């Protein structure tokens, strides 16, 4: 029998009080009226557990926007799943947190936009930074596992040490340093978000030092952003291999962004058994295994390591989801990635006011980036339409 998904990502709503410029939700959001009801989600969790799924990620949007979030957590736990809650903290109260802990939430992940409130709040398009830090303290007091996820990009990457120090001060068990991934909302804002190679290299050095210093106290996960890596990431651990994502309306997707791939239809858990969707539906079989691979993947020694990279990125950057991920240096479409990197470098040089010289000190560069950022037109994530 085919191995089932190890993790189920449940996007229980697309409603969110934040409007982050790099949100991983699709540009086309599910409406509240379409959202699966409590019982339907519970049925999905039971089916997943029966297929060997271990982890449930309750996410959104903002999962706290659902009044039944504690009942959803309880349903996941009752099915035998490990329950992770990924939240901005907006909408959390002590009472609600107690309710969630009693329901069986074991791990709370809070994403931060920056170490500084002002910067964090303009990225999020709302004031949320303080709420997040308050929640971190409450989580620690309840002895739940706490992960902070800091999303990094050109405008904040130079503050990585400050961000690590902030995470340390909250007493988080884990810190994920997540480079913005360029899909959907983030791709629309890529010109402003993509860091330079220099920034990335400096940050990786800082992370390595912190990892050594904090060993056994705070685990730090950080991956080289794929635009600057030689080879692509093993996106989602391979298509239809480890992860299944259910969107608010019940559509099952192999990843957050797969909805952008034209011609691919996604079956709904209200119409089909999860096992059938996983094993037999067209969407999950489309890029599973190696049969779909073109050259240079087909004969590449790394094909079992990175599975050809990300299908959505191939579509977005090379125009065809069945091509090699263009971030790979072996891809015939790699020039698209290099051009984006060059534009990032130029953007920083052009923002150097006056003398026309490249800003060469950290603080100077940071100041200029910040000035450029607040003068830029961002494309903020919207909320689902109401009709």
């Amino acid at each position, binding site marked *: 029998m085919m191995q089932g998904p190890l993790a189920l990502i449940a996007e229980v709503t697309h409603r969110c009080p934040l409007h982050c410029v790099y949100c991983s939700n699709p540009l086309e959001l599910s409406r509240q009226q379409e959202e699966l009801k409590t019982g339907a989600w519970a049925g999905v969790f039971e089916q997943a557990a029966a297929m060997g799924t*271990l982890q449930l990620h309750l996410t959104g949007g903002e999962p706290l926007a659902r009044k039944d979030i504690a009942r959803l957590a309880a349903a996941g736990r009752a099915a035998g799943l490990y329950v992770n809650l990924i939240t901005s903290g907006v909408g959390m109260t002590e009472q609600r947190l107690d309710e969630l802990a009693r329901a069986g939430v074991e791990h709370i992940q809070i994403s931060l936009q920056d170490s500084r409130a002002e910067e964090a709040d303009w990225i999020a398009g709302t004031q949320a930074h303080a709420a997040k830090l308050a929640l971190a303290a409450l989580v620690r007091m309840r002895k*739940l596992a706490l992960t902070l996820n800091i999303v990094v990009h050109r405008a904040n990457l130079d503050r990585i040490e400050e961000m690590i120090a902030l995470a340390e001060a909250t007493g988080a068990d884990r810190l994920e340093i997540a480079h913005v991934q360029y899909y959907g909302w983030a791709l629309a804002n890529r010109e402003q978000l993509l860091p330079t190679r220099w920034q990335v290299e400096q940050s990786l050095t800082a992370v390595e030092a912190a990892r050594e210093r904090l060993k056994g106290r705070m685990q730090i996960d950080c991956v080289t952003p794929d635009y600057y890596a030689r080879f692509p990431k093993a996106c989602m651990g391979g298509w239809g291999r480890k992860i299944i994502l259910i969107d608010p309306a019940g559509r099952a997707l192999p990843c957050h962004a797969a909805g952008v791939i034209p011609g691919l239809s996604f079956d709904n858990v209200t119409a089909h058994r999860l096992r059938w969707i996983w094993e037999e539906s067209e969407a999950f079989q489309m890029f599973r295994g190696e049969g779909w691979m073109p050259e240079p993947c087909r004969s590449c020694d790394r094909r079992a390591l990175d599975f050809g990279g990300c299908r959505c990125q191939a579509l977005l950057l090379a125009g065809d989801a069945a091509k090699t991920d263009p971030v790979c240096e072996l891809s015939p479409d790699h020039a698209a990635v290099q051009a984006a990197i060059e534009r990032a470098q130029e953007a920083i040089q052009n923002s150097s006011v006056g003398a026309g010289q490249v800003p060469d000190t950290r603080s100077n560069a940071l100041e200029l980036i910040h000035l450029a950022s607040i003068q830029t037109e961002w494309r903020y994530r919207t909320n689902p339409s109401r009709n």
Partner: protein
Amino acid sequence: MGLAREACPRLANGCRLQEGAASGPVLLMPERALRLNPPGLRILQLCDGKRAISEILSALSAEFPGAQAGRLEEDTLGFLERLHATRAIDLE
């Protein structure tokens, strides 16, 4: 970096042993899971925050008499160090 023999390991916050899983016993952790073989499971069952590492080692050598003493100790300490580095166990 070695762990002190007098330290008492316990499962860290948010880490849980699931022994009845369909696919065999697993250690469930934030974002991760570790499938356990019988000795791995036994080591984690002994990580109750009360037993010192030295006591865990003696308990294991009594329970796995076939194991070569030096090897058992080395493997157990290596396993505990990895768990500690990834925040699966904390030391009391």
